[in-house]
């Protein structure tokens, strides 16, 4: 990697200040994407601001009818948290399926959603549960947060502080992992809440997306059969050596159906 200045602030304010005064600063949460990128010399930030020392970004708590997960909560903490397991077990299971044990013990929810990798798991839960992303400046609704390939609504100097998930009646996540990387080729998060049904898909497109036709059908009948014939178009979906767009489109229906079965079961 190229040389950079390293900062490890102990408060959010200090982090924002360091980021603001850096010529080309990068925030580092778990570093699971940033470090490999630096090692491959694909990025050359002037400053790296490590968020690992900021206590206010940590922690998982229940707040009324919501589950609030600090931005620096590691995947392994979410996976093993009793609070998460009792409130939204599907979220704990999603976290348990991310990467491998090393990644789960370093990677964070804040880092994952701020990076907005098209094949990351968390975006499916954030959108699928209609969560709210909290930053040092504002609160952003899930549907407004993910803007495209590695693109979010975050502005310069804005730092994710927590994600607040409403607690659903039923929810499940089903992932078809890339056999090599274990990222999602297709991951479908399905949730039934007081406000309706949500179906959010990661991995298949440039960014996480909802499938309105499935949501409407499931609102009428929350059963796998209700969506078995609902297909998404292959146009615009991702394609690589592991899965064509057509195959991904097919898998969206399969994984959503299986998620409904798991949630309903």
């Amino acid at each position: 990697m190229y040389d950079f200045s390293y900062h490890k602030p102990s408060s959010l304010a200090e982090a924002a200040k360091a980021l603001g005064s850096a010529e080309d600063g990068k925030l580092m949460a778990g570093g699971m994407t940033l470090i490999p990128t630096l090692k491959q010399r694909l990025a050359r930030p002037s400053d790296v601001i490590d968020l690992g020392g900021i206590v206010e970004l940590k922690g998982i708590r229940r707040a009324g009818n919501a589950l609030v997960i600090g931005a620096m909560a590691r995947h392994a903490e979410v996976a093993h948290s009793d609070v998460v397991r009792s409130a939204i077990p599907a979220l704990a299971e999603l976290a348990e399926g991310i990467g491998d044990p090393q990644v789960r013990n370093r990677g964070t929810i804040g880092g994952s959603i701020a990076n907005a990798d098209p094949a990351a798991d968390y975006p499916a839960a954030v959108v699928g549960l209609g969560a709210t992303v909290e930053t040092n400046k504002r609160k952003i609704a899930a549907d407004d947060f993910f803007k495209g390939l590695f693109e979010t609504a975050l502005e310069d100097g804005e730092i994710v502080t927590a994600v607040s998930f409403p607690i659903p009646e039923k929810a499940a996540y089903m992932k078809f992992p890339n056999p090599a990387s274990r990222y999602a080729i297709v991951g479908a998060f399905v949730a039934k809440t007081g406000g309706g049904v949500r179906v959010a898909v990661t991995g298949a497109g440039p960014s996480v997306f909802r499938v309105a036709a499935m949501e409407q059908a499931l609102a009428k009948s929350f059963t796998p059969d209700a969506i078995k014939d609902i297909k998404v178009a292959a146009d615009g979906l991702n394609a690589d050596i592991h899965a064509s767009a057509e195959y991904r489109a097919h898998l969206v229906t399969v994984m959503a159906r299986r998620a409904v079965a798991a949630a309903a079961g």
Partner: protein
Amino acid sequence: MSETGIGAAVRRKEDFRFLTGQGTYTDDINRPGQLHAVILRSPHAHAAIRGIDTAAAAAAAGVVAVFTAKDMAADGVGGLPCGWQIHSKDGSPMIEPPHPALATDRVRHVGDPVAVVIAETKAQAREAAELIAVDYQPLPAVASAAEAQKPGAPQLFDAAPGNLCFDWHLGDKAQADAAFARAAHVAKLDIVNNRLIPNAMEPRAAIGEYDKATGEYTLYTTSQNPHVIRLLMGAFVLHIPEHKLRVVAPDVGGGFGSKIYHYAEEAIVTWAAGKVRRPVKWTADRSESFMSDAHGRDHATHAELALDKDGKFLGLKVSTIANMGGYLSTFAPAIPTYLYATLLAGTYTTPVIYCEVKAIFTNTVPVDAYRGAGRPEATYILERLVDTAAREMRIDPAELRRRNFIPKDAYPYQTPVALQYDSGDYFTTLDKALAAADYAGFARRRDEAARRGKLRGIGLATYIEACGIAPSAVAGSLGARAGLYEAAEIRVHPTGSVTVFTGSHSHGQGHETTFAQLVADRLGIPIENVEVSHGDTDKIPFGMGTYGSRSLAVGGSAIVKALDKVVAKGRKIAAHLLEAAEADIQFKDGKYVVEGTDRAKSFGEVALTAYVPHNYPIEELEPGLDESAFYDPKNFTFPSGAHVAEVEIDRDTGIVELVNFTACDDFGRIINPLIVEGQVHGGLVQGIGQALLENCVYDPEGQLLTGSYMDYCMPRASDVPSFAVSTNTTLCTHNPLGVKGCGEAGAIGAPAAVMNAVLDALSPLGIRHLDMPASPERVWRAIQQHSLAQAAE
């Protein structure tokens, strides 16, 4: 059987140092004053080099030197040699283009080395490497051998029109055609053996060192055969005589064939160390390994099997296009020829076999031996063909194999493709495998799976391999440019402990334990009193190293021969001490005993006498008890086996789950069953990886699409079931231990067994063939197409 002798499941002596992080790998070695090398590699699959400007790099912080091909040429450095020469059908020798350590005027694959930067730190070398300006003129490139042989394809070498390296054959085509003319049935397949990237756990590394005082060079390197590297690099590349060149292969973390070859980086660091008069270290990062370690397999084949009405094999015809990559790696020409076509008889009595192989240059990383090396490719074709024939003729696959097995009483058995098998019993091996796999009960399991919506299939493969490579004269007559014996030296120390110096090299195989068991067993001394030394050409005798499952059969036999000499000399000394006739002395359980008496001298007492010869027959016998031996095998060894795989396929996703795997193998006498089982497990996982997960993919322009673990899928523990492995032993008849070798078996049998299971599961849909790997989308597409076709009918 003693607790540490032949046949004992001794825990590996070497594991303590490995498991506690105390191994010494090449990258762990740091020499005083050491510099670091970073190699600039081609980003292009094919390009002319119009110029290289190294001025900015040379001026960068910490840089000691920047070298290109011009600098090496000015010193008379030669190209990397090829160790095997093949002749084409017309008798002409293979095309052997130059293989410079650093590219001269053209690069021929992504990763081809272009320049080397040597600096105080690795980071400085890296920074400077980015400052080298190479003026490339990109040229059209071709990655597929099938495409590269077509008219109009991009050409890699002027000397190799049509990119043809050689057009070779084995067998009699006219006889084969005659056999096919009599056939009641012909099974045909077009079949691809997918390209693999070896991925040893330890990336390659090399340190070159030059001693100004003595003029001696030392190379520390990740090699399976340090003496071979010394010979090739000293004699052909750097022109350093052997007595001034030491090659050390310390602990090596896996090879699988990829660390047999003499690589450019070894020559570069050794030569550069002499230029800059300081040690120079290079360690590959993982991305470099993907684009510079020799790859494996990559065949495209059309094969046909002729059968009579009863399913007896009448003849086999095989036509293969083998991808050689951008240059010839050290043993590349031998792999798709003499290690491949000679195995096409398999376990069967097929009377006529004809095989032709076109070896083609492409803009890809050179291809060479990878675990199994030619034998998995042959086994895969044969066993897929046999299953195809069984299905088409409606004969049970196990039964069809039995009808064609070489009879138990037919050994030695001469195949039509040059080899003579010395021993085997394929019937019992298959029966044991089928019983362990509950082959008879499969229909019940298939029906139960169907109720869960899954397609379940069972597949078997039998295999034969030629190991214990090789009788030197035979190998020489087939084009090998080296002998293939092995050497051993037994150094008995004055108080009776022993150091074994072996030309074999352990890079995961557990030789330090297995070889120590041979000594403990023969000399009757505790295994703790035996040390096995390997890897340092200054210590070990001139031996050929470890590959082709040869270490025990050839290297172990050399040790046994040397031990025999030690015991014989000890007998003379004991006879003197016991004042008895030599013929009356028996050596047993570590003691020389006068037959029929209780008068005895222990091995330790005899050893001490040999080194403190106060009371000694000094007129007739030299002092000391060191002996050495070379062993040149009389024949190959022929391990064989039967593997049974069982899979379940998810129709909705195409995911193949391997649910059961059973292997019964004949490895001859087993010295350490624990180590053998471990070798089988490792081989199976690599074979299963090839069948289901691993695939090296280049785009049509020669860019490597699977250049990291994000896209190249290595098998994980969770991808495989718990294996049921067993053995059925027939002894090798021509080596002193009766051993055959076990290192490659798993990787040879598993691909065909798994794919036969996949195709069995898919057969109700009318799917008759899929290429490896049986990836989810490939399986799903086949299911979709055939379901639609069935629906239309």
